[in-house]
């Protein structure tokens, strides 16, 4: 546990916690971006250069954009960006959903064998990483790609306006 690790962990968790607590969605989204950058800093600290840059490019660069875009498009007025606390009736589903995700994650972390013995650090070059991804792990890469494409198509279908014959949403 070095000082740098503690600092990065604190910043990542603190920004995420504040992002959750804030009632202003745009500020939350921006803080979430900062939290993702903290995760990237952690990868960098662990020596996974490629992963860190990919994290910044994808999460800080693209996903936070999409989140902000969604927030602005769904809440046209700036003041509606601040959501009031949800009713108590929604507390139970929220707790169940959050708790199950937490359970799965903790189970995965506890269940996976973590080697803590002193090993020489793996210095992967980008070339080796690419060969690994395209060789032994090509199948999983293709599956992830297909999954993301399906998700993208689903998003387009949901977002696309209905056929010209359809009645407009009375709002």
């Amino acid at each position, binding site marked *: 546990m070095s000082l740098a690790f503690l600092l990065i962990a604190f910043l990542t968790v603190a920004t995420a916690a504040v992002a959750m607590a804030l009632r202003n969605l745009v500020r939350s989204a921006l803080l979430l*971006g900062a939290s993702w950058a903290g995760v990237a800093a952690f990868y960098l600290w662990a020596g996974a250069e490629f992963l860190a840059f*990919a994290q910044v*490019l994808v999460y*800080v*660069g693209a996903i936070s954009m999409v989140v902000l875009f969604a927030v602005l498009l769904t809440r046209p007025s*700036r003041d509606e960006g601040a959501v009031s606390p949800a009713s108590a009736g929604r507390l139970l589903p929220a707790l169940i959903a959050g708790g199950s995700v937490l359970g799965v994650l903790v189970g995965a972390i506890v269940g996976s064998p973590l080697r803590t013995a002193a090993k020489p650090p793996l210095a992967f070059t*980008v070339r080796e990483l690419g060969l690994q991804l395209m060789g032994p792990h090509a199948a999983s890469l293709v599956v992830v790609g297909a999954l993301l494409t399906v998700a993208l198509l689903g998003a387009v279908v949901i977002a696309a306006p209905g056929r010209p014959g359809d009645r407009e949403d009375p709002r």
Partner: protein
Amino acid sequence: MSAHPANALPLLERLPVALRDACTSWLPESWRWLANSLLSIVAIFVVFATLFALLTLAERKILGRVQNRPGPNRAPLPFLGIRTYGLAQPLADGIKMLTKEDIVPRGADRVLHFLAPVALLAFSILTFAVIPYGRALLPVELDAAVLYFFAAGAATELAIFMAGWASRNKYSLLAAMRALAQLISYELPLLLSIVPVVLVAGSLSTSEIVEQQGTWLFGVFPQWHVFTPWGFAGFLIFFVAALAESNRSPFDLPEAESELIAGHLTEYSGFKYALFFMAEYFGMCALSGMGVTLFLGGWQAPIPALAFIPSYGWFAAKLLALLFVFMWIRATFPRLRIDQLTRLAWKFLVPLALVNLFTAAFWVLSSGWAGPLAFARWLVAGTLVLGPFLVLGRRLSAGLGPRTYRYA
């Protein structure tokens, strides 16, 4: 800057590194790397800040020349009173920006309003770290340098969004939305256009990509990537996407003066306003530098006989040429509408960039073809580039022209 076996290079070539080493040689060994890095940062910042000042003047002069007017020519040199083609204009602008009042709107989000220009500038400076300015001048040698460059650059539009949203101004908010749409649209062709380079070079390291472009065909023609069919198409796509990424005309929709007053800049004044401009020019320089590195041979000389000119001189010449094209385009093309902007990205640039990936793959697979087959190689690759361009170009402009002006 990186420790190459620099002693074999000619004196002019290793002069900047030698100067830096002379400055830090008195320090103990353990501190020297830190001092060296700091000196590199200072050098990059001073060079590009000076370039920024001169570029603002150059842009105004070039725009003036194109529009048949003199441009700024009144600012005299301080205490001398000599007017030298407006050369002191950047100085006057700088003093004006520093002494202007800094206004923050009452309804603004003060923290984000302050943070936006700072973040924008910080991210755009980060991108300078991995560009090889010369044979021995690479600030940070990274294995995944190209990825680093685009990761650092991706966060700049986030800062523009912050500026637009924090200002609490409807024009600024519209600009923020436009900036987001523009980023999401143009990030894709920008990244797809550089994938062929990575594919052919087999490396994400900028220094290696430049080294590989350092040979000459028949001893005369440089083997830069732009002189191959896929490289030519890739460079054009990269350049268009770079224009959009750096918010330059004709893609300057976030600040479109005629529609949005000044977009995300509306509520900024004084030095924060200047910081935005600095970041815009820095982004322009960084993207041009990356374009030079990936497609135009980096610091390589165009013909072997001219290799005696130091490599950073060639890099600077290519960089300035590209920057001139940026300004030339600004003076020539009218601004796009937002629907034209997104249509150009999704229906034209992205498909072309995807096809270009196949062209590059074909180019790699056919690298052994010789004699008449080399001719066939060029023919096939050329068709793969030109065919989709013509087909998509026709579909893009179908039903849109020619326009008839009835009341004009």
